[in-house]
């Protein structure tokens, strides 16, 4: 049984993370349109509110007020369950991400993280791979061949790329020796040394992980499950109203989570360069208390983590409006004959370097 204060702040953190995921996903729709416009020499939505900032609200109103359509012959229960599952799994995975270091108020110290579990990375993987069921069920329940084809593509693509992703991750886990995301983050911090970030030690692994993250979130150039030119809308062809909105939302939340996971695994999470020097400077020169200096560093670290996440989200969108879509056989060839052997090579390389004592 958890003590009430502990449960108290944990539920607050979880609620904040939940609200933030939704807010970020909401504004991802806006960011996507603005970034797309800017990359194409346009200005994007600018009618709703200053700089079009209320556009997501207008979109939400539009989504909610549209007709809810059920195709004939559809399995109604599963048809509703599909988008719900996609949304739930997308929201669940952010619970284990450490958004900040520890904060302390008086005698109460807590970590800016929903749940600290020693299987954090496993949790993210498990929940994310559940997400494909949302797509599968939705596509199957629609009673539409395009939806079914999209769903099958989504399933085979996710399974293929999860392999390479997991193997890229194994190299990180070999160095860290733990699955806990908090531990992995803390290991990437050393006084005066930001080169402790895993990107420095795992550049190949990072590239494999990045490519797989694109495939896992069904983003261009791997957005074959919703490939308009071949499959109308893919698995959400038959969806309308907010059920379609949930699918689109789940995709953006998945992007947010993938960005957060990549920031934590490879870019030091909430660590930022010279954090210890800054804390010591506050304690020594400004005669702050250690606790309040640490609180400030924690908050700065959280801001830093979100900046990293936003940079990744921008990168996702930048790629989307740069690269065309892969053909299906190219996608499979890239996954099975290039990424997986590369990931295995990366594991061997990491193991060899650990044995040789070059990295720990």
């Amino acid at each position, binding site marked *: 049984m958890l003590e009430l204060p502990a449960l108290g702040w944990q539920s607050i953190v979880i609620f904040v993370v939940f609200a933030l995921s939704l807010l970020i996903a909401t504004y991802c729709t806006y960011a996507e349109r603005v970034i797309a416009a800017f*990359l*194409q*020499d*346009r200005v994007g939505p600018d009618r709703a509110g200053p700089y079009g900032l209320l556009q997501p609200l207008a979109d939400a109103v539009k989504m909610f007020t549209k007709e809810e359509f059920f195709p004939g012959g559809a399995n109604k229960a599963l048809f509703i369950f599909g988008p719900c599952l996609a949304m739930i799994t997308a929201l669940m995975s952010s619970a284990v991400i450490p958004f900040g270091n520890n904060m302390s108020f008086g005698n109460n110290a807590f970590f800016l993280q929903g749940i600290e579990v020693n299987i954090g990375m496993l949790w993210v993987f498990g929940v994310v791979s559940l997400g494909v069921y949302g797509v599968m069920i939705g596509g199957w329940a629609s009673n539409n061949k395009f939806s079914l084809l999209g769903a099958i593509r989504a399933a085979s693509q996710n399974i293929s790329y999860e392999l390479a992703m997991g193997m890229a991750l194994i190299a990180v886990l070999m160095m860290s020796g733990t699955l806990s995301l908090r531990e992995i983050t803390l290991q990437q911090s050393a006084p005066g040394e930001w080169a402790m970030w895993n990107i420095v030690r795992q550049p190949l692994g990072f590239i494999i992980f990045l490519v797989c993250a694109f495939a896992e979130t069904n983003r261009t150039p791997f957005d074959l499950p919703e490939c308009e030119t071949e499959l109308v809308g893919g698995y959400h062809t038959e969806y309308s109203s907010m059920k379609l909105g949930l699918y689109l939302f789940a995709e953006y939340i998945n992007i947010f989570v993938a960005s957060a996971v990549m920031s934590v695994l490879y870019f030091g999470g909430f660590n930022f360069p010279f954090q210890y020097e800054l804390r010591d400077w506050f304690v020594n020169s400004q005669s702050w208390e250690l606790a309040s200096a640490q609180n400030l560093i924690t908050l700065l670290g959280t801001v830093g983590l979100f900046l990293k996440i936003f940079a990744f989200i921008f990168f996702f969108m930048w790629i989307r409006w740069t690269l065309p879509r892969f053909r299906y056989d190219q996608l499979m060839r890239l996954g099975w004959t290039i990424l997986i052997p590369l990931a295995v090579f990366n594991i061997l390389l990491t193991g060899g370097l650990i044995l040789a004592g070059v990295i720990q």
Partner: protein
Amino acid sequence: MQLTNRAKKLEKKPMTLAERAYLPAIFQGLSITMRHFFMKKATVRYPEEVRPFAPIFRGLHVLKRDEQGRERCTACGLCAVACPAEAITMVAGERKKGEEGLYREEKYAISYEINMLRCIFCGLCEEACPKAAVYLQPDKIAPPRYERDEFIYGKDRLVEPVSPDARSVRGIQLTADQADTLRARLA
């Protein structure tokens, strides 16, 4: 079969390692899109921002009056003949006694209609007109409307307003100030 000797022999070279790795090409593409990110945007935010008309722009027609405020058009029909889109129709009539202040010549247009949906704004009517009566304004476009018949502009919408000094509002002659304001608005 060879039709010309300009055909270029193409050689399908095997891709180099850099080409097969995709990554250099991807970075090239990313740099191109990033360059566009910071470029000047082509969009004109229309209601707030209006693109200036070219000085030779040919817009909505107007039937001009002469210096004394009389209609110049004599309904000769040359504009209708010149019109490649057959957008102009008119009915000619004879000027009655006492109408000398309204129409300059003995013959005038009882009705004069231009279908703005047919019109291609080529300006041939303006060139054909011997009386310098029909004229395409350089700063006005035909606005959108809901019904097709609303695009058939009659004399009520085509004839230039009488000069501000001769205008009256409900029978009361405009003052000089009001006439100036009106003139400024018409200009």
